[in-house]
């Protein structure tokens, strides 16, 4: 019975999501970015980004839509390649943060007592060190490169999720259906994973859509500090280049990277809002 209710909630949510045209457009944008990223990762597009396509610092033209960089490489190819980096940073950070955040949050919320104390202590400790400092020091210590960025972002972004899940699980624990599941002899883990977690998935989804953009923006800052991705073009390094180029009037690299970032951040934001509105039962009355 629980499952049926579950299904209808999702169906309902999806229906509402598709009715909101901005959310739909955002979803399409996000999917398009994902597609570009996958194609870039597979080497279908922009695999030859390092090739010189013309003279250095050419402004946008019909031949080079986004212009060329100082080495004569196509800025368009770099933006596409950078999309892959940005999306992979977001994805990897989520893949690290979700298991940690969800497991710890669920355990803390469900069991309470000393487990809760321990986990609360853990995330309080983590969140009391400024994020940017943790990010910088972890990347510095892991020796840079994209994996360091993944791990640093993953290790800093589980905290919020953990806190949210904990609160939500606490609420659900007392609900009837969980009590009922207990009565028919479900073990703790069974109750937690089969009954409670499916009911808090929306938190994960909403949070992830927001974490994604946080990750993308963090990559830019890390690149500015020279701690970002190496040997591959990323939006961060492109914006970083602009620091030196802008005074020569070379604006297209900055503009392209900024626009690429703006679009996806905007899409994630609107999508996150829409998801929230359609998945969060509290707002159902809207």
């Amino acid at each position, binding site marked *: 019975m629980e499952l049926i209710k579950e299904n209808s909630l999702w169906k309902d949510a999806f229906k509402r999501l598709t009715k909101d045209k901005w959310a739909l457009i955002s979803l399409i944008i996000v999917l398009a970015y994902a597609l570009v990223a996958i194609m870039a990762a597979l080497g279908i597009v922009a695999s030859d980004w*390092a090739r*010189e396509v013309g003279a*250095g610092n050419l402004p946008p033209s019909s031949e080079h839509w986004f212009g060329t960089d*100082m*080495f004569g490489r196509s800025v368009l190819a770099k933006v596409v390649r950078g999309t892959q980096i940005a999306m992979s940073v977001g994805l990897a950070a989520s893949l690290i943060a979700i298991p940690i955040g969800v497991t710890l949050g669920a355990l803390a919320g469900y069991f309470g007592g000393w487990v809760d104390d321990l986990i609360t202590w853990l995330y309080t400790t983590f969140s009391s060190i400024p994020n940017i400092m943790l990010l910088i020091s972890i990347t*510095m210590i892991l020796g*840079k490169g994209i994996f360091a960025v993944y791990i640093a972002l993953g290790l800093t972004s589980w905290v919020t999720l953990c806190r949210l899940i904990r609160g939500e699980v606490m609420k659900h624990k007392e609900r009837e259906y969980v009590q009922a599941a207990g009565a028919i002899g479900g073990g703790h883990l069974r109750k937690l994973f089969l009954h409670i977690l499916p009911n808090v998935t929306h938190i994960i989804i909403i949070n992830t859509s927001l974490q994604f953009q946080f990750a993308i923006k963090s990559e830019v800052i890390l690149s500015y*500090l*020279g*701690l970002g991705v*190496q*040997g591959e073009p990323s939006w961060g*390094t492109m914006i*970083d*280049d602009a*620091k*030196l*180029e*802008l*005074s*020569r009037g070379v604006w297209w690299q900055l503009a392209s990277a900024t626009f690429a970032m703006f679009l996806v951040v905007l899409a994630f934001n609107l999508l996150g809002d829409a998801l929230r509105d359609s998945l969060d039962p509290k707002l159902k009355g809207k």
Partner: protein
Amino acid sequence: MKSLSLLFSFMLLMVFACSKQNNFDEREINLISPEKIAGFDPINASDRYSGNEAGKVYEGLFEFHPLKRPYELMPNLAEALPIVSADGLTYTFKIRKGVLFHDSPAFQGGLGREMKADDVVYSIKRLADPKLNAKGWWLLDDRIAGLNEWKTKYSSAEATNYDEEIEGLKKIDYYSLQVKLKKPYPQFLYALAMPYTFIVAKEAVTHFGKEFLNYPVGTGPFILPKFEQSSMITYVRNPKFREKLYPSEGEEGDDKLGLLADAGKKIPLVDKINVHIITESQPKWLSFMKAKDDLLEVKDVNIQQAITPEKDLKGEHKEKGVRLFMNPVLDVTYFAFNHEEPIFKNKKLRQAMNLAYDRVGYNKMFHENTAFEANGPTPPGLAGQRKEFKNPYIKYDIELAKKLLAEAGYPGGKGLPTITVQTRSDTISRQQVEFFEKSMRKIGINIDVGMNTWPELVNKVTKKQHQMYTMAWGADYPDAENFLGLLYCPNQSPGSNGANYCNPEFDAVYKVATIMQDSPERTAMYEKLNESVAFDVPWVIGFHRTDIYLAQAWLKNFKHMEFNHSQFQYLNVDLEVKKQLIKKF
């Protein structure tokens, strides 16, 4: 909402009310330091910019003549050049009389006392104090008789005993002292002109203790009562500065340039120096262009904004009376191989990489064609670099490079692993290695860029954990030894020979040459050293760069100077010119 708009208008009002106006009443000059200053202890003034700041308040026994080129030492706190014994080991110095330290609560009655020979002895000993771990210690390491022993003796003791006399460092009377060297050290006098050996007062060191670095008490032309971490350091003229005169002779042509207009006048010529600390390139440039600063060291991207491709000052700056100074620097840039890596024992590979490096493109892209391709480690302008010498591997020849690469056993780069080049993590460094990567790819060599914070890079180099790294080396003093030492085997990591290059023949000649006094024979040996490594190409040799400065019309007496920590006392400002020209900004 109302209160908010009120707040806003209040803020805007404040902004306009507070915008600062130019100051025409005081004879002040405004300079820029592109790096943050950590403190004012001379023994740790290891980089150029902290040296420049220390040089405004402190002085050494010698200084470089502000006008004469090639660089010439002249006595400063010493009365004359020292008397050197025949074996070149014993130096006897006379100290100038009547030199006063700045007034400071460290002294009795708050009045600065006279500087004497004891202070010189004390200041040099401080450099060796094991408790202080001075950055400048390398300068005197194993040079002065008894100094190393003294350092070792107190390294595990509670406190260092400065009263213990050292054999090689003795005061003769109040105004003279004697230094005995362990072995000839022809660069010794240069060492005494460097910020490391500036003279400090013992009272100040003891009185301020750990805070000494914030309370510079020197003998110099300017006073800074207290140093604070801030965006501007303000120095005022030292009213009790001794009678020191602006030089009346200089290099040929200085007269025409107006550099001798103040000849014979008592220095310093200005009342105040403001040093703005601005690290990013855009605000530096804009500040100068807004006439907030009088002198600008033009770097990287701003070069294009300053000069035309013909290397002339752009018209818009000329109009405002801005002057351009372009002078070659005593430095060398390079991509060092780690010679402990087996692949780099292969000379043909090294040669191929040198030939594949597109220096012309690089020079255009990063230096606006102002740098000079280096033929060896020693920059022109130092004895030891023949003008007509041309390194056969310093040219762009892809075909030859490919041929040599094949001969090296890696036809088309096959069989060669990807080489990681370590560099700093700032934008320009990254782009420079990206350019190198692009050059090498043309002959089939794959390069990875390894970006590091400064400590990481230093660590990788000192621990030999790199394949290649890129670096620029600037002269500490004008002697080729300072550059050739980069390839001397005993200097290998953690020393300055980060390439870990070892060549017994080179070392043998180096050992002899560097303890000789300046002479035609020594120059010949330096030339031989410089040229012998040229064929061996221990690095992918880069450039000798050019310093580019812009000076406002009203800044007088500026002449490019490599070792410029003592230069600021000679600068002057023409307020009339400033008043007229300021309207154009």
